């Protein structure tokens, strides 16, 4: 599922208004929509591509080649390949290893937090209950993208 289709930005020509490209790995369509709406409310100019499980996301990243997203937003509880496994796979892949990854999960478990920190996740964000807080999360993602793009 793609929201909106990636092809839209590859037309070229737009130089100044840099749109952040995000890959959201999330199996719940309601959450995909929620983050998309929260990014709009937070005025973060981002194009969100979504993938519903770890395997699909990894395939997508490998196929994208040099045209990688600015950041991966990763849920942990996913069908087939889970978020932690995907993060490990990204870190062990030569081409993907430096990709910024933000964990966006419902997990409160210290084990998950520690494992993701060890795998150099950029941030570990617990999905908030309530839209206003979700807008804050979107703002934080915007800031991370800004730093990542500025550093590159």
């Amino acid at each position: 599922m793609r929201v909106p289709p990636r092809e839209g930005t590859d037309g070229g020509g737009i130089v100044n208004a840099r749109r952040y490209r995000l890959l959201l790995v999330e199996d719940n369509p309601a959450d995909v929509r929620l983050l998309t709406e929260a990014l709009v409310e937070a005025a973060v100019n981002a194009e969100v591509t979504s993938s519903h499980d770890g395997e699909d996301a990894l395939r997508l990243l490998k196929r994208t080649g040099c045209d990688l997203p600015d950041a991966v937003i990763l849920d942990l509880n996913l069908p087939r390949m889970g978020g932690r496994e995907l993060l490990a796979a990204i870190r062990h892949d030569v081409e993907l290893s430096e990709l910024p990854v933000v964990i966006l999960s419902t997990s409160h478990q210290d084990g998950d937090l520690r494992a993701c920190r060890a795998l150099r996740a950029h941030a570990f964000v617990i999905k908030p209950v309530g839209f206003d807080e979700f807008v804050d999360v979107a703002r934080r993602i915007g800031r991370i993208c800004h730093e990542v793009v500025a550093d590159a």
Partner: protein
Amino acid sequence: MLAVSQIFASVAAAHWIATVVGGATLLIGVATVALLWMLPSPSRARPAEDEMRRIATELEQRVADRTRELERSNRELEQFAYVASHDLREPLRMIASYTDLLARRYRGKLDDTADEFIAYVLDGCQRMRQLIIDLLEYSRVDRQRMPQLIDAEEALEVACRDLAVPIARADAAITHDPLPRVVCTRVQLVQLLENLLRNSLTYRADRPTLVHVGVQETDEETVITVRDNGLGFEMRHADRIFGMFQRLHVRGEYPGTGMGLAMCQKIMECHGGRIWAEAEPGIGATFSCAFPRAKAPTAVAS
């Protein structure tokens, strides 16, 4: 005939006597054997002791089994509360987030009734959220952590700091005796005092709120009491108030989910202690927490 009958009679009597004597002898014999059996002769005592030991072992085994069974069911209950509260969060998050979004985008664009309905949904979400947070916290009061000797006075200071806002709002005066150390985990002692103080601040009467934290020491227990001059309650409710989600007032009258005292009870049970309440309507309430005194030297928290 007479002689014959006399002879018969005497024979019968003799027979009787013989029977009685024989019976008595038998009885004495049995009694002697029994007595000998009971005498602390090493050769005879062993089977009885063995029997006693067997029974004791069996009893111990049964107690151990029952304890394991109880521990298992407790663990399951805690696991259930954790899983239920964690999994309940998910659908709630969807309802709350999308209703928030509806309110944000469409407030004032629909009619007043729609706005009112949305407000009710949001209010319900808010309450559900608090219930889930409390349930999660309740399930996390665990027995595994090592209790230490914790300074109750220090714990009270932390609790008062955490409650600075509600204390100021209630214009409450909180006083205390010099408090001792009790065997507890630090976090849970703070939580216990915080919940009890919060209770006093919530159910306050129409007069300046006074709360006093006192202490009574006995040979076996250290009892910390929290006494207030609030609304109090009728003593027939004294046990019920420690139940999960139990409240004595209509929702909306006073804030809270009815989990605070349940948590206090769980904390006390985890430390082998007890909690009880005494109150009088219109006068105030006293909550007493009895901690067993440390028998063996316990590590003092640094």
